[in-house]
């Protein structure tokens, strides 16, 4: 039977993440963005909610089962507070979720307890490359077998916390297929480059990484010798960034809605003008339509349903456009006030446009 009602546990998670978003993430967002730095204590506080830990089974140090759908609910709430902060809090998941869902037993027991049981630590992942037509399924970073190992060469961009991370997943092209490899950040041939300067999410420290014939032991290929199904991981990434997009869009919608109800012009509130009211109605409708697509894709992923991949792709495609439309209108409704950095809508618009380029920075 269909149902659109989160269960009790999910509702609890929604409630706590929503509180953190409102009380901690949102108030810190402006300063964090302007200074390009997110307070360590904030990230730690987010980590302590245990969103990721709840996805990791007890045998690996966590206390639950992975549910993409549950993570979607949490991510929306966190990103509603602040996109950069939400991504920062969830960074260890970029390493943990692929290991959990596609790793060998050995990989799981090596890494997951360390992640789940400790404080927040930057376990990272490197997917994105600077191609205008960047395609996660057709990477330019190349892995080739060499002796019993793999050699990886290429240039990765937007790698979170790369200067701090000790271990990360690097996605590379192995015979035309994208595969993830567990890479020691100190390995020969790995050079961390400059801090990335982007239009938005500047509070999240991102770096370029150069890989020059980095030797990877065979055992460090995700899933071992047989490798893994990258399609499922990509779907989880697309769903993740889409869920974050919903949070950003909802933030912008609500802020613009409240502003429009308080902004008087010629004796009535601007929300009482059909043009503004209809924009708001369309924003809310698109947010909800896209949210349901994302929920369905996550649900399908959780069911290992073969339709999950297409559903995730469609949902992400919708989330990209929805986020841009909604956050642009958020600025438009505030008018001149939307253009100044005192109000958060301009940041959300910058972050909104980022959804198109940030696949790989979130996963569920």
């Amino acid at each position, binding site marked *: 039977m269909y149902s659109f009602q989160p269960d009790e546990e999910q509702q609890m998670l929604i409630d706590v993440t929503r509180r953190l978003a409102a009380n901690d993430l949102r108030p810190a967002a402006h300063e964090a963005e302007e200074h390009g730095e997110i307070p360590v204590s904030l990230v730690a506080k987010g980590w302590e909610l245990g969103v990721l830990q709840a996805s990791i089974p007890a045998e690996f140090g966590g206390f639950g089962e992975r549910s993409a759908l549950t993570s979607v609910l949490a991510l929306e709430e966190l990103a509603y507070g602040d996109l950069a902060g939400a991504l920062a809090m969830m960074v260890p998941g970029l390493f943990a979720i692929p290991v959990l869902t596609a790793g060998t037993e050995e990989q799981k027991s090596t890494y997951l307890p360390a992640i789940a049981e400790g404080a927040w630590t930057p376990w990272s992942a490197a997917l994105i490359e600077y191609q205008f037509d960047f395609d996660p399924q057709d990477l330019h970073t190349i892995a080739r077998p060499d002796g019993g190992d793999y050699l990886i060469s290429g240039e990765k961009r937007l790698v979170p916390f790369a200067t701090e991370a000790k271990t990360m997943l690097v996605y590379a092209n192995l015979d035309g297929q994208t595969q993830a490899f567990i890479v020691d950040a100190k390995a020969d041939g790995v050079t961390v480059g400059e801090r990335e300067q982007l239009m938005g999410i500047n509070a999240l420290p991102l770096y370029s990484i150069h890989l020059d014939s980095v030797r990877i032991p065979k055992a460090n290929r995700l899933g071992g010798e047989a490798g893994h199904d990258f399609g499922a991981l990509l779907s989880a990434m697309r769903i993740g960034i889409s869920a974050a997009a919903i949070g950003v869009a909802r933030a912008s919608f609500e802020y613009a809605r409240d502003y429009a109800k308080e902004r008087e012009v010629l004796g009535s509130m601007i929300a009482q003008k*059909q043009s503004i009211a209809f924009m708001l109605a369309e924003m809310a409708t698109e947010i909800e339509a896209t949210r349901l697509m994302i929920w369905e894709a996550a649900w399908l992923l959780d069911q290992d349903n073969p339709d999950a991949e297409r559903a995730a792709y469609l949902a992400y495609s*919708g989330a990209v456009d929805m986020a841009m439309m909604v956050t642009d209108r958020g600025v438009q409704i505030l008018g001149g006030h939307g253009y100044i950095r005192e109000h958060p809508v301009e940041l959300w618009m910058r972050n909104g446009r980022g959804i198109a380029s940030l696949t790989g920075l979130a996963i569920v």
Partner: protein
Amino acid sequence: MISFEKSEAIAQMQYLIQTVADNMMRPYSRHFDEQEGEIPWEYINFMHTAMKQMGAASLVPQPEKEGEVKEKKGQRQAYQLMAYTIEMLSWGDAGMYLCTPRGGLGSAAIEAAGTPEQKAKFLSRLNGDDPIFTAMAITEAQAGSDNSAIQCRAVLDEATQEWVLSGEKIFITAGHKAFVDTKGFIVVWATIDPDAGRAGIRSFVVEAGAPGATITKKEKKLGIRCSDTVTLTLDNCRVPFENILGSPTVEPSTKGFKGAMETFNVTRPLVAASALGVARAALEELKRILAEQGVEIRYGLPRQKMTNIEREVVDMERMVRSSWLLCLKAVWMSDNRMPNSLEAAMSKLHAGEVVTKVTQKAVELLGPMGYSREFLIEKWFRDAKISDIYEGTGQINRLVAARQLLGYSGKELR
């Protein structure tokens, strides 16, 4: 627990209705479009018999009895079933779907607002040997979407205890079939006190053959030509006292009117469902023809690597699916008795726009073939547009949704 698991009952219904659509609808779509005014009796009689056998009084689900409510919580799916049924029938043919007997808005109104006696009297007829139709008459030439501005007048003749109705109602879907082609009825909205505004508005069951009631015009339309749309003229039309639905006196509140408005929360997602059946038909046919021509749609590519056709098809699929989920959530809320006027309005405005865009695109992408009456695509384009108009235009539904979102009354946001 959020779930996208389709129930067995829905899957079976879909299978069943697709058979109807494939066999009783699609092969005749073009014929009934070209022969505007001809009635698809074969489809009607088949549906009448089938529904009678299934024990379904109409497409509209009947509310459960009071006692049943608790036990069934979370298990009800009557509106979901109906949405799936309507989606599939409209996938078959949106015009013929509107010719489905027994149900219709007229019976929905009685189910929503009638007394047990009225239900027994009027709804039992649906189950007769011959199919009958019921319709709803709201719109007036001067009132448009403003249902509170109704001019049609009902006066109680104290002597005979009859209601005397006068006025003219336009755009009545299936009115001809309800009043002329079968012995059905039309539920007419009229005011019992013009000074009382919304509080004076009531609905009356006007039965086929009622003296003073005449179908005076049959519209020629852009699409859904198989469905009749008529004008009903009431010239001192007398109906029995007990044909009034709801209270015969003007109450100080507008509860009655609001109740009537709330039926939109049920009907709007169903119009959305119908729209999305048409949209799916167009999308599937487009994909079929493209596949025939060797055009493959590759999913998963970044936009920078797609062809324009792939981009269009992917966008269409996304629009149809997300719109369907909006619709599904709205009917799921109906099934679970949650207030859903926001969701109902959203599903309707979204689906109305989606079906318009998808059919527009489908016609365009098929080039001269899309424009030809040799294919059904052009018909679906014409059929589609009504979904963004009836049961409240896209604009009216934006207004309704915005009021909900902003917490505004009709006065605060006009």
